[in-house]
């Protein structure tokens, strides 16, 4: 059956139960369901073409549940692949040479619920990570080292802190106080934290600033990880800068971070979003002591508003099935493509044209 027909139909046939944009998101204490639809077109294909689309977080949590994914288009092969080390789910599509208009549409349905950890009372029964997981989440990655200047900086920051929560908080506050969101950073930033510290240029975006939190935490012996994803709805907490204002979210990628502490489990943080509030919350360029910033600063240590799709926690990714010579990806948040043996620019949705749309789903 010709799957091109699905693309013609899917544009007209909205997901059953889709809600008008912006009308859904008032109740943050309950589960909310979203669809995210990604449409990919390879422009000017040369030879075989390939595309990689990240899929929602595979493992269910008490704040994120994947329901399912569906695809349509004219790919010759479609395969859901795991990166292996981190469990990132990647949909891989391949078109043979001669396909003049490679098309792919992927719809993912998932549910989220706002997340907050009460850090005033540790809970019995939440123990330490296993030795294997502790090693995994304190290990360096290719762009997030845990030695040298990163370790020296971390040790200075956490001096006097006794518990892992205290250490993570000290690092969080340091990132908020010492880094800044740089609008000139391309995409989300690559997270080269060593270079940032060495050059003392502590500007970047979420991929840099939250990687800084993760790298410093790991260096200080606090297990930590980045969580890569996509904003999918406006913020209901009054922050225009912390949500999306339209259904097209092709450039709404956002990464967050977590640390692990005995008694609390994985604790969500987002110092990068505090810096986003500083820079972008109207009227813009707020002081760090501005009440809006202080409120965000307090809430984003231990809590996430879940107007956001979590993709994965993966680093140093080799795209499965890729033939183009290209470096490993520091993370997988964007659509990737290649044609004629050349990798396409994942940060330019027009260079090989991808569009990501979001809609809420009636319960």
């Amino acid at each position, binding site marked *: 059956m010709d799957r091109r027909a699905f693309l013609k139909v899917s544009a007209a046939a909205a997901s059953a139960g889709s809600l008008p944009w912006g009308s859904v998101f008032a109740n943050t204490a309950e589960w909310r369901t979203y669809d995210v639809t990604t449409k990919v077109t390879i422009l000017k294909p040369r030879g075989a073409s390939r595309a990689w689309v990240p899929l929602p977080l*595979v493992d269910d949590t008490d704040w994120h549940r994947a329901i399912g994914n569906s695809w349509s288009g004219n790919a010759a092969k479609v395969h859901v692949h*795991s990166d292996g080390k981190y*469990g990132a789910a990647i949909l891989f599509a391949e078109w043979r040479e001669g396909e003049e208009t490679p098309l792919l549409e992927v719809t993912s349905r998932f549910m989220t619920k706002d997340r907050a950890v009460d850090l005033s009372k540790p809970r019995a029964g939440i123990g330490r990570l296993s030795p294997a997981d502790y090693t995994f989440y304190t290990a360096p990655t290719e762009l997030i080292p845990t030695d040298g200047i990163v370790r020296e900086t971390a040790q200075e920051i956490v001096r006097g802190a006794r518990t892992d929560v205290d250490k993570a908080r000290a690092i969080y506050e340091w990132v908020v106080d010492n880094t800044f969101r740089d609008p000139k950073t391309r995409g989300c930033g690559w997270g080269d934290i060593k270079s940032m510290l060495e050059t003392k240029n502590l500007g970047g975006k979420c991929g840099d600033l939250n990687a800084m939190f993760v790298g410093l935490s790991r260096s200080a012996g606090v297990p930590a990880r980045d969580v890569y994803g996509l904003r999918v709805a406006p913020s209901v907490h009054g922050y225009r800068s912390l949500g999306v204002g339209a259904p097209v979210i092709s450039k709404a990628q956002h990464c967050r971070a977590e640390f692990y502490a005995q008694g609390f489990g994985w604790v969500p943080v987002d110092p990068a979003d505090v810096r986003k509030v500083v820079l972008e919350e109207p009227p813009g360029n707020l002081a760090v002591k501005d009440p809006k910033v202080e409120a965000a600063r307090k809430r984003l240590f231990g809590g996430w508003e879940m107007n956001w799709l979590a993709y994965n926690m993966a680093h140093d990714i080799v795209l499965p099935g890729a033939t183009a010579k290209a470096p490993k990806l520091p993370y997988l948040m964007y659509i990737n493509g290649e044609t004629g043996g050349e990798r396409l620019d994942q940060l330019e949705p027009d260079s090989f044209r991808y569009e990501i749309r979001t809609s809420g789903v009636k319960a």
Partner: protein
Amino acid sequence: MRSILLALAAAWMTAAGAQELKPWTGGGTPALVLEDLDGRSHRLESYRGKVVLINFWATWCEPCREEMPSIDRLLRSMDGRPFAVLAVNLAEPLSRIRTYLDKTPVGFTVLLDRDTSVAKAWKARILPVTYVVGPDGKIRYSYVGELDWSQEKVRRTIAALLPP
């Protein structure tokens, strides 16, 4: 946690041309106990002796909707034979499923996987995905994506599993 995804890599699919069921090499048959639209419980074990086609679907999945009539045609072509279809819906409200089925009536059993736990146990990450379970309860074939289930080649493959 990471080991959960080991089976994902098995889900190859060809979109055009060679629409063949893929012999299953993915291990044992997960459990399946779900309620139908009328609240009756169905256990896969109670279908021993029959060939069972288990299809994971959702109304928001365009290819799922497209292939459903062909599954219905397959079922009707097997009328009187020990063959059953269980269509497992992922986490949708009953009202939405009923609305869809009112417009696209089918003759097979629709089951409700309200919390997607069965879909996860069966590694149903991409919809539609379909498993063909033999009379012995073992998965024999799988297919990821939309398929014309009434085409002769597919029907013959499934019919070959039926007990004499």
